[in-house]
């Protein structure tokens, strides 16, 4: 515990912005985990008498609808809170898909080189040639619109960055002394690749995972906004904005707060990721 405290203190001193990113993310995770206890109202409960109740600080605001209600009288804050859980899940799973496929591809491609490397990397280049959101839209169009499919699509398009990064690192590592030593000791190729090498390139990977989460959340919101991700009544943030945009002249809070939530979350991931990169990179120390 003490060790964690001093680690955090050290991190705070060196990277104050990154530290606050971490704080926001911790709060978000907490919100997501305990959505049931935090939200004051059922996010799906409709009450037409409350249609377009403005946020609490305006004159017509009503407790407990702190951030107001939508056209069906559903509580905006509760929907945002449940949306936080979804967004974190989306980020986590999408990046997991990207990492699970991307890391081994990069490791194998980088370690063996030659023909395997050429073929694999051209395929990756092919994927990178498409704008990632467009590719995700194509994948969802094939699989059908749903949140799960959106997550799969975003996961698939986040494979190339992982594969590229890992490959580049492996190219630098494979000729190093510890790898030669492993070989001389007769270790199996599998354990060299997935044991020693992976252990040594873990730092930058962690950074990519953090940054990737922010990107994945943004992409998922984009897909949901286009109607290809979360389906109603799921309160995904992008879907909330899509719903709210029809009433932008009557109820600004329907798009303002979900937009703010996405902005803050993605920014928190980014500044934390940036700080983590500097922290992990020995040269900047």
């Amino acid at each position: 515990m003490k060790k964690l405290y001093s680690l955090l203190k050290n991190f705070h001193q060196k990277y104050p912005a990154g530290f606050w990113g971490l704080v926001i993310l911790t709060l978000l995770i907490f919100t997501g985990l305990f959505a049931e206890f935090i939200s004051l109202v059922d996010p799906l409960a409709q009450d037409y008498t409350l249609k377009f109740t403005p946020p609490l600080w305006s004159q017509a605001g009503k407790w407990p609808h702190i951030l107001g209600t939508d056209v069906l009288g559903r509580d905006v804050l509760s929907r945002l809170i449940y949306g936080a859980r979804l967004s974190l899940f989306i980020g986590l799973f999408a990046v997991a898909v990207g990492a699970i496929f991307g890391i081994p591809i990069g490791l194998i491609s980088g370690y063996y080189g030659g023909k395997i490397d050429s073929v694999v990397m051209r395929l990756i280049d092919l994927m990178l040639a498409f704008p990632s959101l467009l590719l995700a839209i194509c994948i969802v169009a094939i699989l059908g619109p749903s949140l799960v499919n959106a997550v799969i699509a975003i996961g698939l398009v986040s494979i190339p960055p992982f594969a590229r990064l890992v490959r580049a690192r492996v190219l630098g590592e494979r000729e190093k002394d510890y790898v030669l030593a492993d070989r001389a000791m007769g270790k199996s190729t599998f354990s060299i690749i997935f044991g020693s090498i992976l252990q040594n390139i873990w730092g930058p990977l962690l950074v990519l995972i953090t940054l990737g989460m922010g990107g994945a959340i943004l992409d998922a919101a984009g897909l949901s906004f286009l109607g290809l991700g979360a389906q109603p009544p799921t309160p995904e943030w992008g879907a909330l904005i899509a719903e709210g945009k029809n009433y932008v002249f009557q109820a600004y809070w329907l798009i303002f707060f979900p937009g703010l939530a996405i902005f803050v979350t993605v920014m928190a991931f980014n500044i934390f990721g940036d700080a983590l990169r500097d922290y992990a990179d020995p040269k900047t120390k």
Partner: protein
Amino acid sequence: MTFGLLKLNFSSRLFLGLMVAAICLPPVVLAETLIFGRGGDSVGLDPARVTDGESFNVTDHIFENLVTFVPGTTDVTAGVASNWEISANGLTYTFTLRDGIKFHDGTPLNAEAVVFSFERQLNEKHPAYAFGAPYIYFKALGLDTLIKSVAAAAPNKVVFTLTKPEAPFLSSLGMQAFAIVSPTAVNKYKEDFARNPVGSGPYVFKTWVKNQKVVLEANADYWGEKAKIQKLVFRSIPDNNTRLMEMMGQKIHVMDNPAPDDIKTLKEKMGKSIQFAQRPGLNVAYLALNNKKKPFDNVLVRQAIHYAINKKAIIASVYAGNAEPAKNPMPPTLWGYNDDVKTYDYNPVKAKELLKQAGYRDGFKVTLWAMPIPRPYMLDPRKVAEAIQGDLAAVGIKAQIVSYEWGTYLDKTQKGEHDMALMGWTGDIGDPDNFLYVLLDKDNAKVPAQNISFYENDKLHTILMEAKKTTDQKKRITLYKQAQAIIAIDSPMIPLAHSLDIVPMLTTVKHFVIDPTGRRQFSRVTLE
């Protein structure tokens, strides 16, 4: 630091000022062009092959019928036929055509053309039949079995012989789907006639850019009162917000299907430059339950769903109050409306009880289809679907919202691929037959169906057929009231709302008459 603007010389500042003024001033719109901003594109422009208002609103300007309606009413008046005679037994109708009418391609509009227009829909062996089959409207109104023959008795005389007397027949002939088409053009373009429509109306078809606009030009050789505006543009702007902005920016003259909440916004932001035409629509929005599919084959389930849906809430929220809750599949402004049918006031407890009785204690999963574009009877279908989804969830029914592109949506619902589907109907003529028979008779439950509830009730069928035959108005009223009572108990579909038809337009638009049947007619409109 100083602002760049302060350093500019006088002429630059003047220029900038003028630029700003030019951007802020409303754009000057040419008086010869009227732009109508609507929520969706036409499906096709062959009136015999389509069923949706977006198509008819265009074909209405290009084509004409034997009879037509007095603007703003459902009263029948002379069209291309100057007069007609009905035989005493009600089986023979003889129409006399006006002299000298020509289609836009120069083909004379004579008895032969009229016969062609009906034969191509009626007779499967007719050479032009295959170009447009199935003729959904023709079948939906039962004209395929009603009309025995259409014949030219003289170059200007057409005789219809019916298999049985039918009271609404004359009105039906005024519906857009039964317009008189140029035989030369149909034979020339075949299937593509739907993209190259040729009629005899006050406007001539010019271009159609799919999902963007249809352009019509005034017919200089029109036989009747010529159109006042040279060019009509039907722009498709599916996004409610974009359409609203276009109206506020005065880029369109008339706006169709404003989102209910936007009406207030328009009033506030546009003040004196906007006006509204308004009247209760001759329409009904409903939730069709596919009676052919489980569990909707069970009347208890259908009733349960009726109890579960909070119509008042939907109208107060999504419709912004611009509608009234429906209990019958036809609007109260129409004669023969039955106000005393079984009602289903919102009661989720009762709904649960009925579901339990039906053997669905734990509810079930269904698909709930929602239209992709605003319709006059339902301006925000997706939000209505969400409200219903919430109501159903409260009684244990899990509904998944499904949506398709408009043409596909119509096609798939007509084939019965849905469990539950939102839909609606705007009456074409002021006759209950046009609602009850079209929407719920077993004749129309065959694919491609207009009765997308796929409800088949022999007793109802007998009553509706009887009502068609009778010309005694009092008897017809009694029959239609009976029909509504049966429908209410069986609850094959859930009537949701009768919406108010509101059309915002610039104050420069004059003489626009809002039609009870929801038609948007611009032939008599002028611009100041």
